[in-house]
């Protein structure tokens, strides 16, 4: 493991970067009659943070405000210790951004594009060329970096977008739907890459996405926006994981199993093809596991899956984001 500590909070030997990456207090934003944000207060810490919200909940507006592109109607926002409205250029110099759309100049090569974006972020010409080449290797683009972007697949295009966001060594990278349009295999590779950037590279990431399963897999913490306000935020381990009994899936003989379980004193309800087994107290203590085990033996049902029924990020999102 490199000697670079990641988001464990201990100040790193790099210029002692602050623990809070983005701090928002009572942010309000109105586009004419439409209120995009109505008093969002949150703190985003180092590491990989998922930004979640229903369509039109103000996610894209918030990303734009972090880059200093829009001015908050009320409230204050601080990115990397700076005010993006006044010190916009200084903030944007230290931040990488990968937009939601896939359109990139078709007749430019990936190497030229990434180098140009690095230069525009303040790197001298020679360093920009070197770092662009490094960044493209890191995202897994070999010789196809010298082909025009127009000839690249969606998967390669998403990698180019990520490379141009990290080439100028930003402290923070904003990714807007980075896996949009990718098939499952490409998606996994991209998520693994994002995880590496957030941990090995030591660059903090804010990932805006609709796919909760992705956020759960890659992010350390999450901020959920609904109706223009931050309705939940914090480490994902704290948001989810609350225990709500057991989930049992069986091949066959489900009715017999249900009878056996109820005989053993557990409560059973059906969620689609799965059985939800709980004790009156709701928590899954050893006794409940044994009841399930014995009921399975008794009913002779083939056990396909037995897991704790924990609160998923989707449950949090649906309950909170009313």
């Amino acid at each position, binding site marked *: 493991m490199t000697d670079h500590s990641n988001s464990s909070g201990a100040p790193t030997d790099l210029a002692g970067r602050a623990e809070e990456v983005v701090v928002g207090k009572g942010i309000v934003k109105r586009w004419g009659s439409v209120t995009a944000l109505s008093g969002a207060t949150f703190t985003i810490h180092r590491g990989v943070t998922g930004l979640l919200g*229903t*369509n039109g909940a103000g996610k894209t507006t918030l990303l734009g405000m972090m880059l200093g592109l829009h001015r908050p109607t009320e409230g204050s926002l601080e990115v990397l210790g700076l005010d993006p409205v006044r010190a916009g250029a200084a903030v944007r110099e230290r931040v990488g951004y990968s937009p939601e759309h896939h359109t990139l100049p078709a007749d430019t090569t990936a190497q030229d594009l990434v180098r140009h974006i690095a230069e525009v972020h303040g790197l001298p010409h020679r360093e920009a060329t070197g770092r662009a080449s490094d960044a493209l290797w890191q995202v897994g683009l070999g010789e196809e970096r010298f082909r025009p972007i127009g000839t690249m*697949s969606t998967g390669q295009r998403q990698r180019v977008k990520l490379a141009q966001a990290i080439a100028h060594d930003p402290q923070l990278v904003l990714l807007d739907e980075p896996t949009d349009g990718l*098939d*499952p295999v490409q*998606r996994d590779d991209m998520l693994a890459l994002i995880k590496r950037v957030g941990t090995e590279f030591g660059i903090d990431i804010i990932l805006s996405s*609709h796919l909760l399963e992705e956020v759960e897999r890659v992010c350390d913490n999450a901020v959920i926006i609904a109706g223009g306000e931050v309705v939940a935020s914090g480490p994902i381990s704290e948001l989810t994981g609350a225990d709500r009994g057991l989930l049992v899936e069986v091949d066959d003989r489900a009715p017999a199993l249900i009878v056996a379980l109820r005989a053993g004193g557990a409560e059973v309800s059906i969620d689609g093809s799965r059985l939800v087994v709980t004790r009156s107290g709701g928590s899954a203590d050893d006794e409940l596991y044994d009841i399930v*085990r014995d009921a399975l033996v008794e009913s002779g049902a*083939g056990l396909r899956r037995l897991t704790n029924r924990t609160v998923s990020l989707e449950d949090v999102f649906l309950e909170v984001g009313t």
Partner: protein
Amino acid sequence: MTAVARGWGFDGPEPVWPIEVSGASKWFGDLVAVSDVSFRVGQGVTALLGPNGAGKSTMLRMLCGLTAPARGTVRILGGDPRRDLGLTRRIGLVPQQEVVFESLTAFEFVRLAGVLQGLDDPDAAAVRALGIVEMPVDDARPTSTYSKGMRQRVKVAQAIVHDPDVIVLDEPLTGLDPRQRLHMIHLFQRLGDDGKCVIVSSHVLDEVERFGSRVLVMVQGRLAAEGDFRAIRELMDDRPHRIRIRSDRPRAISSGLLDRGVVMGVQLEGADAAVVETDNVGHFRQAVADVARQVGAHLYEVSPLDDDLESVFRYLVGR
């Protein structure tokens, strides 16, 4: 939810399949998009999966008659979608591209579809379709100002306004947030339960698992697998099942399973977990609870590691 295909084994006259493709091939210049694909799709929800560029969109376009197969035949409800114009009354398509008529509002766009379908009361049909996709009927803003999610729902509304029997959807879930996606999935399930034939192409596999379990997997223009994805997993007999067991005494359970010859290999993970490999998953499922009770161990978790659709997909794509 395992989609129990309604009314299997109906013994009426030679049954007409909603979708029947035999030996279909299609190429653009020397790029072979679809090569010799044959399958049948009945009522209920079927997911069409495959990596980018596998020929999914081309296949869906052939199903709707938007393009003709170079070889082989495509039959929708017994007819040829390319020739029989009347068939379009019973087909609904949600295309992949985002663009709709910019100057029209949602209601006007869906109502236009109703008029062109020759409905008796296009207004009522449009109101009903927009209601189903949870879109306001009186929104005066043109579709050009809509977000991706709203535009997607309007596209679904125009596809169901004439109550078609076959509904084809090309990646309908992109751009929808979790709530809208859940709602759309329930809609597909309702349409499927109602006897419609719904074929959906999608990349979000854990969502597809919620549609139902019947899948068609296309890889490099060819059909790689067809049927209930769990059944497909069973057929993948050249790959042992790997199952993770969490217990207070994982070693005892593992050795118990080994003694019964149900398990081929064991890999201990930390103090409370073990990953076992078995080539006869049926026996394993019967034995695991029994062995746990025999050795008096608490059985905290039993979760297959490669039983989900994603591993089936990776297996088929990786071959």
